[in-house]
C-alpha cells in the first residue's frame, strides 16, 4: 500500500471541514502538519487516498465517531504542570480565595485543558489553602482521548518540565517508575466535560463562572473564530468575572467588551460588573 498523497484541493476541503467543526485553523504553513496527522488516521483505517477518507467523514459518519477519532489525532495535548503559574496563583489569591472567604462558592473553568495539568495545578493551590471543596472546578476539552488521559491522572516525565514550587509539587505529586501521579482527591475534585469552544450552546450549558482560564488555545483559531470563542466565554462569565489567556495572547485586537487589567504583571480580561 502506497503512502497517501494529498493535493492542495483535498487539503483545502479537509482543513475547511476541520475548521467548520472545531474552529481549529490550518493555514498554508500548517499543510504538512495536517497532512501527517490525517494520513496517520486514514492509514489506520486502510485508506490510501485522503479524498476517500474525506468522503467517509463527510457522508458516512452520521454519529461523528470517526470525526471524534480524527480530533483525537489532531489535538495536541501540549501542556504541563505549573505552566505560566503566576496567573494560576493570581486566580486563587485574587478571585477564588476571597470569594470563598466571603461565603460564596466560586466556579472556575479551565477551557481546553488538554490532559488536565492546568486544572490540577489550580486544584493543588486550592487544596494547599484548604478550600478545594469550596470551589467548583470544571475543565473541558474537545478531545475525548485527552480527557480520558486527564481523568486517569497519570502523566509522563515532560509534564513536570518546570517546577516553580518544588515543595507544593512534592505534597501532591508522586513520580515512580517514570510515571507521574497526582493525589486522587485532586483529580476527583475536577468535573471534566467535553466541550467544543466554538459551540455557544455547549458553552452555555456549563453555566456561569467567576473565572475562566483559556490559555494558549486562541492561537489555533482564525480571527473570526477567536471572536466567536471569546464571545462564548464572555457569555459564560458572571459580571465582574475574569478571563485569563496565555501570556503571548491578547484580546485587544478583537474589540471585545471585556476590559483588560494588569495585576502583578499578569494580564486578565474582566467582564464589566
Amino acid at each position: 500500500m502506497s503512502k497517501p498523497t494529498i493535493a492542495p484541493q483535498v487539503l483545502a476541503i479537509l482543513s475547511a471541514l476541520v475548521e467548520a467543526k472545531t474552529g481549529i485553523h490550518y493555514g498554508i504553513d500548517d499543510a504538512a502538519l495536517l497532512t501527517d496527522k490525517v494520513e496517520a488516521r486514514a492509514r489506520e483505517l486502510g485508506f490510501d487516498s485522503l479524498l476517500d477518507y474525506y468522503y467517509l467523514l463527510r457522508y458516512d459518519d452520521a454519529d461523528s465517531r470517526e470525526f471524534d477519532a480524527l480530533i483525537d489525532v489532531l489535538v495536541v495535548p501540549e501542556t504541563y504542570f505549573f505552566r505560566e503559574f503566576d496567573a494560576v496563583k493570581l486566580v486563587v489569591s485574587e478571585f477564588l480565595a476571597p470569594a470563598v472567604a466571603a461565603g460564596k462558592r466560586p466556579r472556575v473553568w479551565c477551557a481546553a485543558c488538554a490532559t488536565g495539568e492546568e486544572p490540577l495545578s489550580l486544584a493543588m493551590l486550592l487544596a494547599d489553602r484548604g478550600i478545594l471543596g469550596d470551589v467548583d472546578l470544571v475543565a473541558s476539552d474537545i478531545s475525548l482521548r485527552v480527557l480520558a488521559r486527564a481523568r486517569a491522572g497519570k502523566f509522563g516525565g515532560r509534564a513536570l518540565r518546570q517546577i516553580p514550587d518544588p515543595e507544593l509539587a512534592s505534597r501532591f505529586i508522586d513520580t515512580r517508575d517514570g510515571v507521574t501521579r497526582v493525589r486522587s482527591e485532586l483529580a476527583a475534585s475536577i468535573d471534566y466535560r467535553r466541550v467544543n469552544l466554538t459551540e455557544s450552546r455547549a458553552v452555555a450549558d456549563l453555566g456561569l463562572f467567576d473565572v475562566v482560564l483559556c490559555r494558549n488555545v486562541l492561537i489555533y483559531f482564525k480571527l473570526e473564530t477567536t471572536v466567536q470563542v471569546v464571545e462564548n466565554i464572555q457569555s459564560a462569565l458572571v459580571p465582574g468575572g475574569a478571563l485569563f489567556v496565555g501570556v503571548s495572547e491578547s484580546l485587544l485586537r478583537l474589540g471585545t467588551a471585556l476590559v483588560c487589567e494588569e495585576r502583578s504583571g499578569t494580564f486578565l480580561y474582566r467582564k464589566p460588573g
Partner: protein
Amino acid sequence: MSESRPSLALSEQERAKIAAVDVRVATGGLDDVLSLLRMLVEPSWAVRRAVVAGLAALGDAALPGLAQALRSERDSETRIAAAVDAFSASSGKAEQAALSLAADPNPAIAADGAQILGRRRVVAALPALEALIHGPDDNVAVAAIEALGRIGGGRALDSLVAAAQGSSFFRAFPAIDVLGRTQDPRAVAPLAALLSNPLYALEAARALSRTGERAAVAPLSQLLSSRSGANLRIGAVALAELYEQAELRYGTAASIVEALRPLAQSPALAERLARSLPDADSAEQIAICVVLGALANEEAIGALSRLVESPPPIGPAASKALNRLGRDAQAELLRVIRQGGTQQRLAILPFLSSTDAKELVVDCLRDDDSAVRVLACATLAKFGDPSVVGALFERLEDSDAEVAQAALSAIQALGGPLTEQLATALARSPVANLRRSALRILAYFGFPGALDVFIDVMNDDDARLRELAVNGIALIDGDRAMRTLLVASTGASPRTRAVAAKAMGQRRDDSRVIGALMDALRDADPWVRYYSCQSLGKLEWNDAAPRIEELLRDPAGQVRVSAIEALSHLGGDRARRALLNAATSEDVDLARAALIGLGIAPHSDALPTLLSASTAADPTTRLMALSALSKFESPKVLEVLIRTLGDADPSVRNAAWGFLAARSGADATAALVEQLRIGKNVERAVAALASPTRGRVGDIVSNLRKAEESTARGLVSALARIGTDDAMAALVLAMTGETPIVRRIVAPVLGALGTRESIDALRRAETHDPDPEVRRICALLVPS
C-alpha cells in the same frame, strides 16, 4: 487601452468611468485635458490609474495643466500624488517644466519637481539636483537625494557619497540609504568607510547589506570581531541580509558564502554568536542562525544543532540554516552527529545527504529515542541504497508504531533484491502486525512470487490482511491472480469487495474486470459502489456512462461524488452536461467535484460555470474553480488569475500565483511583469517569473528591452534564478543590449554567477562597452 485590464475586478461604475477616460484621451482636446485633471482626485484607484495613464499619454498637451495642479491646487494629497505620477510618466518633453518646478521657492513644489526629475532619470538635471542637496530645505534635499539615486551613474554616486559624508545628519542618513539601494558596486567602498563612524555605522551596515555585493562581506565581517555585542548583532543582521539579497537577485548566494569562508577560521566566533542569542531580538536571532550556517564549520554546526529545538524564531531559523548547508559541509555534520547525543542526531539527520553516512545512520536505528529512529529510517530512504533494508526490516518490530511505519515506508522506497525474500519470510510471522507489514511490502511491489502468499491470506480471519492481499494480487499479471481477484469481488465481506473493486481499476488489460465492476455498481454496500464507479472512470469505460449517471441519484453521498469523478474521466456531451448540472448542486462536495471534473477535459461550455464559481463566497469553491480554470487557454482565465492574486484567502492567492507562474505564453509573462512593475509583490512576481515554463526566457528578454529600471532588476533576477543554459546565455547576451541601464543591472549578476562565460562578458564590457558607467562597474567586478 482597457482591453488588457482585468475587467472582472472592476465595478460597473468604474468600467464606465474608465471607458470615458479612454474617450477623453482619444479626443485629446483642451476640455478633455481639463476634465481629466479634475478626475485626478477620483476615489477609485483603478479609475485614477487610468486618468494618470491618459494624462501621461497626452504628453505636452497635459503638462501645463499638471504643472498648474502641482503649483496651485495643493489641497489634496491624492491629486498631488497622481499629478506627479502623470508628470513622471508623460510622453511629452517634461524635463524643462520639471526643472522649473524643482527651482520653485515653495519647498513642497521643489521636492515634487526633484522627484519627477529622478523618476524620469533626467541626467541633465544632475547639477540642479546637486544644488538642491546643499539648499536650505531638508525635505527638498532628501527628494534630490532620492532623485540622484534613481538617475544613478558615477556623478550621481559621487554626489550621494558627498552627502553621506556631509555634516547634515538629516541628509547623510537618506544618502546612505539611497547608496545601498543603488545596487551599484561602487557604493560599497564609501559605505564601508562609514562603518567606523559610530553615528552612521548602523545605517551604513544596513545599506551595505542591501547591495548584495560580495565586496561588502569583508567590511561587514569586521563588525563580528567587535567586542561589543551590539556590533556583533548588527554585523550578523547585515551579513544575513546580504546573503538573502544575493540569493534573491542572483539565485545563489555562493559568492557571499565563499567570501565568508575565512570567517570560519575565527576562533570561537560561532560560540560568541550563539551566546549573543538571548540578548538579540527575533530578526537578529534569525540572522545569527544564517551566519552560523554560512560559517559551516564544526563549531557553527554544533551550535545550530543545539538551537534546532529552540522555540521560534530560533529553532526554525537554525533548521533552515542547516538545510542550506551544501554537500561541502557533510563531513562537519557527520563529526557533530558522531560526537553528539540524541538532540544532535535529531537536528542533523534530516540534513545528511551523503551515503558516506550510511553506517552512522544505521546505528541511529537503534537509538533510545524513537524520534531519532524515525528520522534514521527516513534518512536511509533518502539515501536510496537498498543494502540497508535488512536493518530496516528489524525495525518493523519496533515497539513504537511510528518507527515501524517509518521503516515500512523506507523499505517501500528502497526495494532491492533482499526485500522480496525478507518480506515473504515475514509474512509467515505469528505476529499479526508483522504479517500486515510484510503484506504491505509485498503488495506495494506486486512481486509475482508473492501470489501464493496472497492467495493463502485470502482465507485469513484478519480482514485487513485480506484487503492487503487483494491489493497485491491486483498488481500481479496472469489468469490465476485475476480469478482470485474476481472471486474477492463477490466475496461475503463488503470491505473485501470494496478493496477488490478499487484494485480492479488497475487492471486495464483484462475485460473480465469491466463485467465485475458493472455488477458491483449495484452492490448493496455504498463503498463497493463508490470504488466501482471510481475504477470504471479510471479505466475510461465510456459504455458505463448511463449506469454511472443513474448513481448521481444514489442515496449515499460518497457514491454520487464518485459518479461525478468517474464521469469527469469518461468525457462526452452527456457526461459534461451532468457535470455542469452538478456544479451548481447544493451539495458543496458534489459541486466541487464537478468543478474539478470540468477542468479534466477543458471545454468552452464549462467556462461560464467555472468563471462564476471563481467568485463564490466560499474560498474552497473558488480554489476548485481556479484549479479547473487553470487548464483552459482562454484569455478570460488569465484575467481571473490576475484578479485572484489579490484574493482575500491566502490559499486561493497562493494557488493563483502558482497557476500563473506555471502558465506559459507571452500574456502570462506580461501579467507577471505587470505585477513586478506595480511593485506590491515583487518577490512573488520574481519567483513566479523564475518558473521555467515554455518560452519564459524569451518572453522575459522581450520585456527586459522595454522595462523600467526597477522592473528590469526583477526580470534579471528571474533569469538568474531560472539558471538554465538559455537563461544564462540571455544574461550574457543582455550585456550587449542597447540599454545601458539594463547592462548596469546585468553586470553585477554576471559577477555573482562567476562562470567563465559571465566573467568573459564582463571583461569584454570592461573595455568595449560604449557606456562609461558600465565599463567602471565591470572593472570592479572582473576578478583580478
